[in-house]
């Protein structure tokens, strides 16, 4: 994993024998005023992999994702996308490689923009032609079809809105998709549809996923590897097989796993606090 691609004259040097990971985060720190929200987080995600970040509220999991997305500028450390280091300010080309799906489908679509406008704008910004065909293709891809093209968000159900959000993320044909709790605001039956959709799109487009969620079951379903975060640090990194076999090393992860299986009187009595 010693990939040090230096830029000279804007061109990456000859790539080493092992391909660079799709995403590499090294020793990331994020501070908001007095709060030290992320304290030295490092992980890497290979091309085509689906990586989960799990944690409770305030663990810093979403902050890490937003820093990778370029939505927070106050971070330190290193972020590399396919070997290229990115800074606090992203150039336009970055967004053709990295896109994001947000948690709340009711908050992530502009209330006065039609689906058509939502999908046409990224194409206009990046000067991509053939907008008609691209919009129709991406709408078909997320299972909506052309009938939805000129609707406003309030004319869509929660699941349909989240499909539009996925379509918006895919229309620039990125290779890395950041998913911030993409189904936590949805009913379980709708959650199943969106998760199936994401699984299918990942296979069809060869996407790399970074999925942030509080729901261990969703991570177990969607990811191959996961990192468990608490208080701004990664407590443990493990494979989904280890999680399924209920053999995490860290007591914090074990407690999280136990609590997410449902209510248990005994377990509730023995809850510990981890600082």
């Amino acid at each position, binding site marked *: 994993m010693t990939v040090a691609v230096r830029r000279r004259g804007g061109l990456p040097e000859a790539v080493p024998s092992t391909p660079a990971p799709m995403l590499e985060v090294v020793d990331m720190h994020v501070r908001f005023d007095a709060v030290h929200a992320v304290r030295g987080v490092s992980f890497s995600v290979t091309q085509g992999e689906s990586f989960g970040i799990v944690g409770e509220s305030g663990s810093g999991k979403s902050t890490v994702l937003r820093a990778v997305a370029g939505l927070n500028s106050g971070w330190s450390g290193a972020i590399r996308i396919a070997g290229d280091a990115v800074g606090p300010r992203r150039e336009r080309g970055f967004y053709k490689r990295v896109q994001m799906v947000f948690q709340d489908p009711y908050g992530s679509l502009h209330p006065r923009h039609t689906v058509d406008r939502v999908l046409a704008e990224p194409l206009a910004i990046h000067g991509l032609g053939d907008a008609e065909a691209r919009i129709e293709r991406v709408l078909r891809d997320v299972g909506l079809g052309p009938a939805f093209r000129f609707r406003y968000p309030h004319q869509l159900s929660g699941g349909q809105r989240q499909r539009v959000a996925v379509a918006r993320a895919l229309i620039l044909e990125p290779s890395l998709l950041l998913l911030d709790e993409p189904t936590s605001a949805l009913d379980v*039956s709708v959650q199943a549809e969106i998760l199936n959709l994401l699984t299918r799109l990942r296979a069809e487009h060869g996407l790399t996923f970074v999925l942030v969620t509080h729901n261990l079951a969703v991570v177990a379903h969607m990811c191959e590897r996961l990192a468990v975060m608490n208080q701004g640090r990664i407590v443990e990194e493990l494979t989904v097989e280890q999680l399924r076999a209920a053999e995490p090393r860290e007591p914090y992860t074990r407690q*999280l796993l136990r609590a997410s*299986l449902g*209510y248990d009187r005994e377990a*509730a009595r023995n809850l510990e606090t981890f600082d």
Partner: protein
Amino acid sequence: MTGAQPLLTVEDLRVEYQTRKGLVRAVRGVTFTVGREKVGIVGESGSGKSQTGRAILRLIPPTGRLTAKRLGFEEVDLLAADERTMRDVRGQRIAMVLQDPKFSLNPVMTVGKQIAEAYRAHAELDAGAARKRALDMLAAVRMREPERVYDSYPHELSGGMGQRAMIAMMLGTDPDLLIADEPTSALDVTVQMQVLAILDDLVTGRGMGLIFISHDLNLVASFCDRVLVMYAGRIVEELRASELGQAKHPYTQGLLAALPRVDQPTRELAVMRRDPAWAMEPVG
């Protein structure tokens, strides 16, 4: 656990709203009883589960119309009761906890003051006694520093602490029935466990009845004694929580199959095919 005499009897409860787009029937003929036990009401958004909870306390907006063959709480006929009686019932004998404590607590008043105020309104305690009672209750919901919490404003508490403060407020008057509408949905799983443990103790220890409204079928199954599954304003299935695996209604089965599980890997989750017949009322 169902005692000989149920605490609450609901028969053919209906809630309807007249809107611009026509009549919306939020609850359509719901019948159940609650004893001194934990009853879960499960359903997706729009299933009418929250409306059912509110209708028991007649807390529906004025545009709504509430009807029932029977809505009885012990000796009180909740349908016929006047506003005065209802006020006594609400808070004192039937309490309600909502999803987000941020919306239920007054932001410009300390938490302790609000709790004490609530006790004074219902139990006619003097200020000192109410304060002592509030501190006791804050300790009872396992707040580590009741004194500090008493003097805190709602925004100074975390979600879990706010929800426990709400429960303390609701329980100070020793209600017979608690209606909890998604009380833990905004909380982390470990905090959720703590809050559920408190509710569990209250039911087992004090013999309180609990209606636990939630979208989380697994959680309800692990926590409650009985589960009512609601769909489109109706109860489509009622079963013992321990027998959830043997659910017969395709909707319940569909909900269970749609859930991803840590212990059972699947390539693809089952997608529910909704049958219009589920929403139909049984004939006759």
